[in-house]
């Protein structure tokens, strides 16, 4: 009897549209201009939304109700997709070439970081109508949301860092300092206190105090790797989802096969971990002492797990070919790993570090669970 009741319920549920989005997510399929809708609890894909343009390097962010996602395409496309109906709710091609974006803390505004023409454009989250257009002197990178309907970003070409306040009718954009040569990405600490800007054109990371934006920026890690020759960087590291753990930052060394550990208070380097390759993402496993790392091509078939207490590699996994991204279940039980060249998303149990499932996907890159809707700085 029970199977019958259960199956009736399953048949009835979609008809009533009673789908909750709290355990859903999207996987960017970079070659096909689509996103795969995934159900984390079922470890399955439940649909595909197509027609998003060039989504190589695409990222996305969620509305506060976890119903809509805003997908930032490489070709300047900004697409609002509806997870419930699995359709495109709105779409605009707002620039020639863009790199990412963020949603304001109140969910009202979506900001996009553009390469060509360089600058930031801000849109109404309901309609995707243009609210503000802020041209910049170059490619904008590292855009994050800051509490108080604000956004912060940096400019690759000039090193300038800006804080934009969109809480009033007219935006107020303030240059809060210069990070240094060629900032490649930036990240906001979980307390929204420090905006950390990573540099490619010179050694170092520059910290901006967003609780007191008048405070002069502090540059640190300016001398790492002076003992050896730098190696080629075949993929720019990412700082979003940068690991903050055990009172430390875990940072990707640029041009070196190392993770650098920096004390969060003193901003001094406390340790170095030799790893498999050039780190791309270093992501903290929630509610644990571990960080997981993936690597640039050609060493991108490996994922390593590092203990933030001992700074030692505690596991080396070979999940598949061309591992591009990792996304943890919000409370850390599982990690979903995209293997681009195997056309799969692999699901690992973080306790056993064994594979527990997989989902077919076309050249998957970024994986984004809806829980991101409630995190500052994403």
């Amino acid at each position: 009897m029970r199977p019958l009741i259960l199956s009736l319920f399953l048949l009835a549920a979609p008809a009533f549209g009673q789908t909750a989005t709290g355990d859903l997510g999207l996987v960017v399929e970079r070659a096909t201009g689509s996103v795969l809708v995934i159900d984390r609890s079922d470890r399955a894909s439940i649909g595909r939304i197509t027609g998003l343009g060039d989504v190589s390097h695409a990222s996305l962010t969620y509305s506060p109700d976890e119903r809509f996602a805003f997908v930032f395409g490489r070709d300047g496309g900004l697409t609002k997709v509806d997870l419930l109906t699995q359709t495109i709710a709105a779409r605009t091609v707002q620039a020639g070439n863009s790199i990412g974006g963020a949603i304001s803390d109140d969910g009202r505004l979506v900001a996009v970081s553009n390469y060509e023409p360089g600058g930031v454009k801000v849109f109404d989250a309901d309609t995707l109508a243009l609210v503000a257009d802020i041209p910049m002197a170059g490619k904008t990178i590292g855009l994050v949301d800051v509490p108080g309907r604000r956004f912060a970003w940096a400019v690759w070409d000039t090193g300038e860092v800006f804080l934009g306040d969109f809480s009033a009718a007219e935006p107020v954009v303030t240059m809060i300092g210069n990070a240094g040569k060629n900032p490649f990405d930036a990240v906001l600490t979980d307390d929204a206190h420090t905006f950390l800007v990573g540099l490619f054109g010179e050694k170092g990371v520059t910290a901006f105090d967003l609780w007191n934006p008048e405070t002069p920026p502090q540059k640190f890690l300016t001398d790492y790797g002076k003992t050896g020759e730098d190696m080629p960087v075949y993929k720019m590291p990412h700082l979003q989802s940068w690991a903050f753990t055990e009172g430390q930052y875990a940072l990707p060394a640029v041009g070196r096969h190392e993770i650098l550990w920096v004390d969060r208070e003193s901003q001094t380097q406390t340790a170095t971990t030799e790893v498999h390759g050039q780190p791309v993402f270093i992501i903290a496993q929630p509610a644990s002492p571990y960080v997981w790392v993936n690597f640039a091509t050609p060493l991108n078939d490996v994922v390593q797990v590092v203990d933030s207490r001992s700074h030692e590699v505690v596991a080396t996994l070979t999940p598949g070919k061309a591992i591009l991204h990792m996304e943890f279940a919000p409370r850390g039980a599982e990690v979903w790993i995209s293997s681009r060249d195997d056309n799969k998303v692999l699901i690992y149990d973080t306790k056993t570090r064994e594979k527990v499932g997989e989902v077919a996907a076309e050249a998957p890159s970024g994986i984004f669970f809806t829980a991101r809707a409630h995190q500052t700085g994403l």
Partner: protein
Amino acid sequence: MPRFVSLFALLLAMPALADVSPDRARALEHMVLQDCGSCHGLTLKGGLGRPLTREALAQADPEGLALIILDGIPSTAMPPWRPLLTEDEALWIANYLKSKD
């Protein structure tokens, strides 16, 4: 798809320009789109790196492009690919970029 095949046939028919096996050529094409694409865009219309479309490279000569691929451009984000590619393979990529639709 037919366009891709004809381009492939054209490139395979250029042994004098670059001595690369068909299997390796397929791997190189994948590498251009996916790995070069992470900076130059999957459609090669540019990103952090410059556009690499046929139009954008119209004035560039293949040997010069091959050298940039092999040695990179100092003080930019373009890395040297010499550790991963032979000179023939770099030249194959240069010709591929210049003839790709």
